[in-house]
């Protein structure tokens, strides 16, 4: 450890790197996740839904007929009675993130390990960050494996290799999925520091999840008319109203994720939400290149 020679000026100025010990926490968390029974169950769940939906999607996809973005359609094609894999992801990713971290802090408190850890030369921030990154990296590993699995099945069954564009889009979507998981993980960790009981923290996280899945759109539907003027008389007001509605819907991580999925996986979709006829004119018929899809988000 470096020793700082200059005197500490204020009380708030803390010595040393704020991330001292981060690596140790991160390694331990990942090891815990990857060897734990909890992870095994979650893994099994994701692999099952992945394989199930991909195989039904394959039955629906005829190579040759319309072979644009075949691999992306593995994610998005649904066939009765099974929804598409993206739909499952939108629901399952939050649950996995919550399951990994709802007891990350209060669990240590209740096991009496927290005070022992905080007596070591680490800051609380480093402990929290280490736990968060450990969870996030676990998610990354799991979903990277799932993506590889999907592409593997694709290569075997479709008989054509994925294009560079498809691979790129799938990778961006992987990033988006991990980001989406990160939001839920951060939320679950927050609850885990607020509530002493792990069960309460888990319930609170699930409640938020259920709220966004079932009720958020209803709330938005109720709130937007209140924000908008009574009578929409000109175009500007119309644009403003629809934009405020879009912002509101997008507060929900679920909508945000759906948008990411739409843009990355369905290149023919160009606009999110309300589209003005003027803008539509400028729209080009060809699918958007990858770089522009990223920009739309």
């Amino acid at each position, binding site marked *: *450890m470096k020793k700082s020679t200059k005197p*500490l000026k204020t*009380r708030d*100025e*803390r*010595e*040393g790197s704020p991330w*001292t*010990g981060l*690596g*140790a*926490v991160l*390694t*331990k968390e990942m090891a815990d996740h990857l060897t734990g029974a909890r992870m095994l169950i979650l893994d099994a769940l994701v692999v099952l839904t992945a394989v199930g939906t991909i195989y039904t999607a394959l039955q629906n996809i005829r190579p040759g007929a319309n072979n644009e973005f075949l691999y992306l359609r593995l994610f998005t094609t649904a066939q009765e009675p099974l929804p598409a894999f993206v739909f499952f992801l939108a629901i399952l990713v939050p649950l996995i993130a919550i399951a990994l971290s709802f007891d990350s802090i209060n669990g240590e408190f209740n*096991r*009496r*390990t927290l*005070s*022992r*850890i*905080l*007596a*070591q*030369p*680490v*800051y609380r921030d480093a402990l929290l960050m280490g736990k968060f990154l450990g969870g996030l990296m676990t998610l990354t590993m799991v979903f990277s494996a799932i993506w590889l699995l999907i592409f593997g099945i694709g290569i075997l069954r479709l008989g054509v290799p994925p294009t560079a564009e498809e691979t790129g889009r799938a990778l961006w979507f992987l990033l988006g999925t991990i980001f989406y998981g990160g939001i839920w993980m951060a939320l679950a960790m927050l609850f885990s520091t607020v509530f002493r009981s792990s069960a309460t923290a888990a319930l609170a996280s699930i409640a938020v999840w259920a709220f966004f899945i079932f009720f958020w759109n209803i709330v938005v539907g109720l709130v937007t008319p209140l924000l908008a003027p009574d009578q929409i008389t000109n175009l500007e007001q119309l644009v403003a109203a629809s934009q405020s509605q879009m912002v509101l819907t997008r507060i929900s991580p679920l909508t945000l994720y759906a948008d990411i999925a739409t843009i990355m996986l369905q290149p023919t979709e160009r606009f999110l939400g309300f589209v003005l006829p003027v803008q539509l004119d400028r729209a080009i018929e060809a699918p958007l290149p990858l770089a522009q899809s990223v920009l739309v988000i």
Partner: protein
Amino acid sequence: MSDLVLEAKGLTKQYGDFVAVDHLDLSIRRGEVFGLLGPNGAGKTTTILMLLGLTEPTGGEVSVLGFDPARQPLSVKKRVGYMPDQVGFYDDLTARENLIYIAKLNGIPRDQIKRRVEEAIERVRLSHVIDQRTATFSRGMRQRLGLADVLIKNPQLIIMDEPTQGLDPELAHEFLDLIHSLKTEGTTILLSSHLLHQVQAICDRVGLFSQGRMVLQGTVSELARKVLGGAYRIQLQAEGPAAKLRKALEGLRDVNAVEMNNGAIQIEAQKDVRADAAEAVIQAGGRLQGLSVEAQSLDDIYTRYFEEVRNEKVN
């Protein structure tokens, strides 16, 4: 470096209106074992948390090994071993794995970790279970592993909060022996306890705590002299003329009081006057049947002190 390992001046902690620690002055010298003693809720744990920078003092100053725990917590925590009042481990990991994690958090170089972990576990005599999951450990084993966990960083100061809490008397003494062996190696130790009699034997100096205030501080015999007047209590069994015996004993130097109950005589004295008392009994024509000195009891000191405080208030 100065001889003072720890120094606190006017250390105060308030929770809202409630004063948990009230202007505490404390200094601990290198190599001594200091006992922070007092009943539950007296403010011992709060004091310890402030010494480690785990909670911010409301007022006052602390210096631990020359560092300010509030501003330089990493330097303090690197050098000070802290054993909380309730030690928990990751039950699905082995003793070794638990300690490796702590070693890593302390930035101990990779090539030294294995050796340091094994040494620490050896010190607390748990080598035979080093690769067992801590879920299988008994209360006493956990406490010892907690000590190993502290030893792994080769601390210059060890702070233990209620180290014997929840241990049966035999295990408690075994554990105190372990602490004593650390002391003989020159480690400075601060421990807290509400079981005064249990820890008094291993403490060089003690501070008696009550309602956030340190009311008495010093060696056990200093406190005994101050509070009990007589620091020694001597028990005699003798036969003979009662009046004559009493007179002879009361006439001895350093004797404060003599209490007689048939053949059982109790003497309170400032020194260990056993030899003089035995002689006096024989010269007074009595027959000595038994003689023993009772260790000064901190519990007595504590109780007596508060009786006096109460009496003063009443008067």
